[in-house]
């Protein structure tokens, strides 16, 4: 099975003008991708890479993985063929990726506390079941801790975010929650915290591997497969790396405000607006849903309290067998009611978690759009610099200084190359984003539909049980 590359390349004349990416072009069919083409720089890349191949071993060597690995083509390799991208229609690209059907299931389970005191941590078992030949075996598991997940995310983010891939964000840190666990409080809230985190980690991994490019990333494969993972220390919140990250984020935010991009592509403008709206509405919805989950919990607690109280009341009503019977019945039924409320609440809680995930995902999407802006900025800066150099060169020519002229000419040539590169980078990231957004939207639609239907189905069950309960009360009381 071939390791498919995400960007497809065609051989053909190199002088076709760059067209609007969104046209459905009728370029030569994709079969040509695998023809032996001497100009095709990806010939190596499309060979089957066995898992024991030397290339892979290089990647798996210790130390931080190189920012750009040979399998995913670094931008510079694409240079001669970039213009060809415009001839690929998106449908064809999707088909290409869909060639290998996605059959993979990851579960995060068995949280185990390792160590003691403030150095303690939770280890989770990450089990993978798959039939894809990308992996060494079909069923395997490893032990990972939370910072490993964060490390994975930070590696993926540094590799892919700036070229336009929507990298799923990792679950959030929680100093309060973790401290409770470390200190060893075995109560319901810390159990809930661990469960919440376990579930979030599972969703995170599934989202990551569902992304066709990320799935093949060696860091991801290493994370899932290898039994020992170098500790990711730079993920600690209060480490120097953490603080540096925060400073960088702030600087970026300031920069973003100063970039004024001439958006020539209406698609991007529309999508930006769409995501801004979505962000706002999802946050609002998330807040309401969280509030409902909280109130439902309260209701369940209060119902239980009331049931006890009603039972006591019935007990003191010793004058009539009926009243006592009714109150006992009421107590039992209320308890059942409470169980059902808890169940419905749990499903609604899934909805709440999904919304939280999407709020964070959309932040990642907006980040990707920002990277595009930055890429554009870089390209524009390059052009401005080139212009300046041209003017300087003209001046030199005028002043007749041959040595300096040659140097200037060299610099200019280099700059021209950079500017062209900048333009290609911009086009590439724009194209990637379009694809990513379309994929993202598909996933979003699917996720929401599934969760809502699941929740409604559980509601139906609860209602049916409530019906039964009420019928029982009526029958009982009438029979007296």
């Amino acid at each position, binding site marked *: 099975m071939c390791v498919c590359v995400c960007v497809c390349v065609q051989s053909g004349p190199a002088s076709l003008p760059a067209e609007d990416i969104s046209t459905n072009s009728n370029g030569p069919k994709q079969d040509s991708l695998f023809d032996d083409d001497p100009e095709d720089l990806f010939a190596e890349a499309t060979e089957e890479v066995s898992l024991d191949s030397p290339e892979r071993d290089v990647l798996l060597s210790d130390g931080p993985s190189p920012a750009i690995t040979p399998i995913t083509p670094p931008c510079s390799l694409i240079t001669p063929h970039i213009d060809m991208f415009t001839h690929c229609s998106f449908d064809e690209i999707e088909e290409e990726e869909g060639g290998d059907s996605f059959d993979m299931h990851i579960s995060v389970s068995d949280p185990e506390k390792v160590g003691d005191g403030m150095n303690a941590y939770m280890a989770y078992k990450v089990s993978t079941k798959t039939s894809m030949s990308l992996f060494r075996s079909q069923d395997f598991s490893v032990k990972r801790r939370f910072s490993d997940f964060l490390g994975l995310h930070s590696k993926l983010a540094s590799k892919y975010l700036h070229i336009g891939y929507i990298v799923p964000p990792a679950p959030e840190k929680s100093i309060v929650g973790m401290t409770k666990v470390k200190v060893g409080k075995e109560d319901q809230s810390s159990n809930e915290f661990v469960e919440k985190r376990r579930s979030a980690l599972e969703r995170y991994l599934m989202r990551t591997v569902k992304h066709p490019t990320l799935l093949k990333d060696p860091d991801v494969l290493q994370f899932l497969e290898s039994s020992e993972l170098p500790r990711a220390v730079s993920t600690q919140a209060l480490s120097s790396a953490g603080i540096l990250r925060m400073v960088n984020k702030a600087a970026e935010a300031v920069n973003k405000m100063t970039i004024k991009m001439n958006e020539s592509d209406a698609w991007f403008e529309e999508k930006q607006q769409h995501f801004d709206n979505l962000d706002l509405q999802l946050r609002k919805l998330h807040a309401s849903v969280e509030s409902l989950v909280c109130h439902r919990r309260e209701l369940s607690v209060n119902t239980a309290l009331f049931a006890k109280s009603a039972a006591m009341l019935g007990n003191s009503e010793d004058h009539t067998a009926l*009243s006592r019977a009714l109150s006992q019945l009421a107590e039992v039924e209320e308890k059942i009611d409470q169980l059902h409320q808890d169940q419905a609440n749990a499903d609604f809680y899934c909805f709440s978690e999904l919304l939280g995930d999407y709020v964070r995902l959309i932040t990642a999407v907006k980040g990707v759009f920002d990277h595009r802006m930055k890429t554009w900025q870089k390209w524009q800066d390059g052009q401005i610099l080139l212009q300046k150099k041209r003017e300087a060169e003209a001046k030199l020519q005028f002043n007749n200084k041959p040595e300096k002229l040659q140097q200037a000419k060299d610099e200019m040539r280099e700059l021209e190359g950079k500017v062209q590169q900048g333009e290609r980078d911009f086009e590439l990231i724009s194209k990637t984003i379009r694809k990513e957004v379309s994929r993202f939207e598909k996933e979003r639609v699917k996720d929401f539909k599934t969760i809502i239907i699941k929740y409604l189905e559980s509601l139906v069950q609860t209602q049916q049980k409530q019906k039964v309960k009420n019928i029982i009360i009526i029958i009982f009381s009438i029979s007296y």
Partner: protein
Amino acid sequence: MMQEGLDDGPDFLSEEDRGPRAVNVDLQTDATLQVDISDALSERDKVKFTVHTKSTLPNFKQNEFSVVRQHEEFIWLHDSFVENEEYAGYIIPPAPPRPDFDASREKLQKLGEGEGSMTKEEFTKMKQELEAEYLAIFKKTVAMHEVFLCRVAAHPVLRKDLNFHVFLEYNQDLSVRGKNKKEKLEDFFKNVVKSADGVLVAGVKDVDDFFEHEKTFLLEYHNRVKDASAKSDRMIRSHKNAADDINRIASSLYTLGTQDSTDLCKFFLKVSELFEKTRKIESRVAADEDLKLADLLKYYLRESQAAKDLLYRRSRALVDYENANKALDKARAKNRDVLQAETSQQLCCHKFEKISESAKQELIDFKTRRVAAFRKNLVELAELELKHAKGNLQLLQSCLVVLKGNT
């Protein structure tokens, strides 16, 4: 008809369960005297009840007539019963609580002030909710006042009370002013003395098993009803909070639905519609619980207190009787004021026996009424919840069918 821009006059009378009448009490109403509240008007700071009477008794000038009364006049009637020594041996029907629209009015006012800061749909929706809340409180207060009158009308002795007849018939203002500060202070002290006395008197063990048993029972029952009432209030409040949240979620989903350009937009709109409908049902459920359960408990809290008061009066009479006996013995021993002591002792004895006799019957009636009321309300509540659950279920299932069909 309610003023202040709320338009829901005859609606509360046309309720399916003919609501207010005898909600918490199972009463035998006979044709000789039927009392109900046929109408009510809510003004700035008071409620005017139209008390409607139908009677075949010769005491009244007409067979059917109505008067307008306010809350203070009900309280006056109740207090006149309590202060009447003749009625010491009866459970005095508890006074209806004061109509309290303050919280609701405040909310309406806040809504009016914040009108500019929310969308038109949100505003209309919230206004509708607050109006519904106002209406619910209104219905409740009418019901409580009506129950009080019905209890009096059903009581074989109290129904003959002159003050009661004046209350029903006199078609002008009774000029009953609310208690001024001095009187309120007097009342407060009276209550303090009474509870202290009550503790002393309660310590006296009763010769009669029936009453001894009743004493212990009532004490325990009263406390448990208080607890259950408080807990049911909390439960219902949580229910209302949850319903409010569902309302907000429905709005958010609606906005998302209108903004979304993917397949999800129809989905969101349908789910938003569903949540709107289920929220209405949930609100109804909370309101029914409130009426049938919480009000029931609150009422029996007050009635059990009235029953306790009866027992207190009896114990007080018993203590007086015993004291009179002691005084008589002392007088006989000293051979001074014997006649006086004898008369006083006889009075006390007579009073005590009269109270005991009627108290026994009252307490037995109380139990019968209570059991019947609880049974009736629980069954009605279960029936209503069943109906709502069916409705909810149907909505959910039909929505699911549509949603699954779309995917």
